[in-house]
């Protein structure tokens, strides 16, 4: 009897998580479309429901009801398994991501390790999807995804490591609780930036949306998928986006903590604080999407290996020094900010040196005078 209750509990938990995540994804879709619309001076969805609020639901129904087209050359087993291989890891990491104090399915001591380990798995799904589709664009996209995700895994892990060192724990509850005096973003702005950029690349969002790049490989690994199977990829993508935003909040922005908030209220109010912070981070991701062009794969790789990896090592060394010598926190943040600013400065200086190239001359034959107009 207790076994049945136990299994029932577990199943309902999984279903609850699934429902919750689906609701979050639907809201994200709406927020993204609305936000992008406003950036582009459009209104975004307006027809279904008030302010188009039900548009994602309509989309979901459409996707599920859509015919699943299957090209005759696909490798069927791999083709059907690939969406799950992408979706399950992104779903599994939510087991240990807390949304408020003690509101978590399973609080693991190795939580961060677990999350990192699981999120890497989705590469397999992407490559498998690309390979099984028997489509050249899909293959290209799949390999792009593999290269991109593997190389950005390293700075991501390194940035997380800095936080783990500071908190002396891999437990997310613990990490957040450690931030009650100051959030780690203040101590490690460098780490935050590395984590955020690498995270963007991990979830394949602009400016790193190289594997699904619509204008080049027409959707990459997902090009042959349609209907419900495509929507699983879609779901996974948005869950990952949400996860990266949530991790940014938990690791660097103090999770559910808010100055002036203490005592028993934390648990309940914390949920709202956590979601507010997460949605803010997500808005920044969408803002980037509305602004930036896409990098090329080789530029992405050189940016990852030549900039982010060294920077993340510097970050770890810095954190180590901070821990070992017991520097005051403000010194750490000053050093971190200095490094950040100097990197910015160096890059823009390099840009400025070649800035002369970036002009076009206005040529006037009569007076044959050439004036700059850059």
């Amino acid at each position, binding site marked *: 009897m207790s076994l049945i209750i136990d299994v029932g509990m577990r199943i309902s938990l999984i279903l609850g998580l699934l429902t919750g995540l689906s609701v979050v994804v639907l809201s994200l879709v709406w927020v993204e479309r609305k936000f992008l619309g406003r950036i582009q001076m459009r209104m975004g969805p307006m027809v279904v429901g008030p302010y188009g609020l039900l548009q994602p639901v309509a989309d979901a129904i459409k996707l599920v009801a859509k015919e699943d087209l299957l090209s005759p050359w696909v490798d069927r087993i791999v083709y059907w398994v690939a969406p799950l291989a992408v979706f399950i890891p992104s779903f599994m990491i939510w087991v240990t991501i807390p949304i408020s104090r003690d509101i978590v399915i399973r609080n693991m001591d190795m939580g961060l390790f677990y999350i990192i380990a699981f999120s890497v798995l989705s590469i397999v799904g992407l490559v498998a999807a690309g390979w099984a589709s028997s489509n050249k664009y899909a293959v290209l996209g799949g390999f792009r995804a593999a290269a991109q995700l593997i190389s950005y895994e390293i700075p991501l892990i390194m940035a997380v490591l800095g936080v783990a060192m500071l908190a002396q724990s891999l437990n997310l509850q613990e990490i957040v609780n450690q931030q009650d005096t100051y959030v780690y973003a203040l101590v490690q702005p460098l780490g935050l930036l590395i984590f955020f950029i690498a995270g963007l690349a991990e979830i394949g969002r602009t400016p790193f949306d*190289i594997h699904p790049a619509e204008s080049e*490989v*027409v959707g990459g690994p997902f090009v042959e998928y349609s209907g419900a199977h495509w929507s699983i990829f879609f779901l996974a993508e948005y869950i990952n986006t949400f996860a990266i935003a949530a991790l940014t909040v938990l690791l660097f922005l103090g999770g559910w903590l808010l100055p002036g908030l203490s005592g028993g209220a934390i648990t309940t109010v914390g949920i709202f604080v956590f979601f507010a912070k997460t949605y803010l981070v997500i808005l920044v991701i969408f803002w980037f999407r509305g602004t930036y062009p896409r990098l090329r794969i080789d530029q992405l790789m050189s940016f990852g290996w030549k900039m982010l990896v060294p920077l993340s090592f510097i970050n770890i060394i810095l954190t180590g020094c901070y821990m070992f010598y017991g520097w005051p926190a403000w010194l750490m943040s000053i050093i971190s900010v200095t490094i950040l600013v100097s990197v910015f400065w160096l890059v823009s200086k390099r840009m400025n040196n070649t800035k002369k190239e970036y002009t076009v001359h206005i040529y006037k034959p009569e007076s044959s005078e050439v004036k700059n107009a850059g």
Partner: protein
Amino acid sequence: MVDQDINKKLDTVQMMVNMGPQHPSTHGVFRMVLAVDGERIVDVEPHIGYLHRGSEKLCEGEIYVQIVTLFDRLDYLSNLNNEMVFCRAVEKLMDLEVPERAEYIRVILCELNRVASHLLFIGTFGLDVGAMTPSMYMFRDREKIQSLFEAVTGARMMHNYIRIGGIKNDVPEDFDQRMRSLIVELKKGLEEADKLLSFNEIFLARTKNIGTMSAKMAIEYGVSGPSLRASGVPIDIRKDHPYSIYDRFDFGIPIGEVGDCWDRYYVRLEEVRQSISIMEQALDQLPDGDTITPTRFLLRPPKGEVYVRGENPRGEIGVYMISDGTDKPYRVKVRPPSFCNLMTIKDLLIDTYIADAVVILGSLDIVLGEVDR
């Protein structure tokens, strides 16, 4: 170099990727068969002709007035420029004077059309590079231009407004005022695109030194228009062989330095500014008077042949027309600017990445309606 040695030792297999005709960024129905080695393009085989309607052959069976509608549909983003060059060809053949006012209105509208075309280019180029917002901004501004076209010519794209001997009818009364407010808005919108895209580091990384076309190569291939000028060759028909009334305006020709994608992009952006200045000057000088020299509807130009050149947004358009004295031309041949510009694609693409292929193709700004005719 080390990289190349490794590449030689590795036994890689080339993959043929069929890009187009149904690909989001081949700008119409253009198809390239790319032989790729990983992400690197080894060989390109361009295929055109999916939109071949035999326009030139059709011209042989239609009377002169009807041909204007065919020219509208060649380069469907710069209709007025096309109409103008055909009408100039017939006028030259018939030795027809065009009233002053009609010339001015033609120039204003053609420049406006050029601006609209370049704005669309900036937007779609942004899309090719992966930025989705510039296209929306540019469509917003282009929409204003098209509204004005609608008010003047009655149509948003296929105008049939420039007629042999002048223009269809005079501009509406509030034209001047609407133009001036439009110019202000266009300037603002252009600045926005400039700030958003032109000097964005990612955009620069994607376009700078990509698809470099040397001046020599450009001339050999007969590339014209902004793509030629981006390579540093200052040839602009409006300046070198001024037609209509272009010799009355003070404007410059934007010249690029290296001829890469960024230059081709920025030359066009700068050209919009020059066009705006032309429009402002033309509006100030706009005289009163007739708008059309009346001709018979069924024109019978004398025997002879003409070649008329004009500067389209995409390059130099030429119309070679042979008349045999009847009401239909004996032969009409168009020099399509995109056709010549597209010829370079094979040389430009080899040894670049797939992502660059899209950017390079976008930077050439082709219109397949004109390439295939």
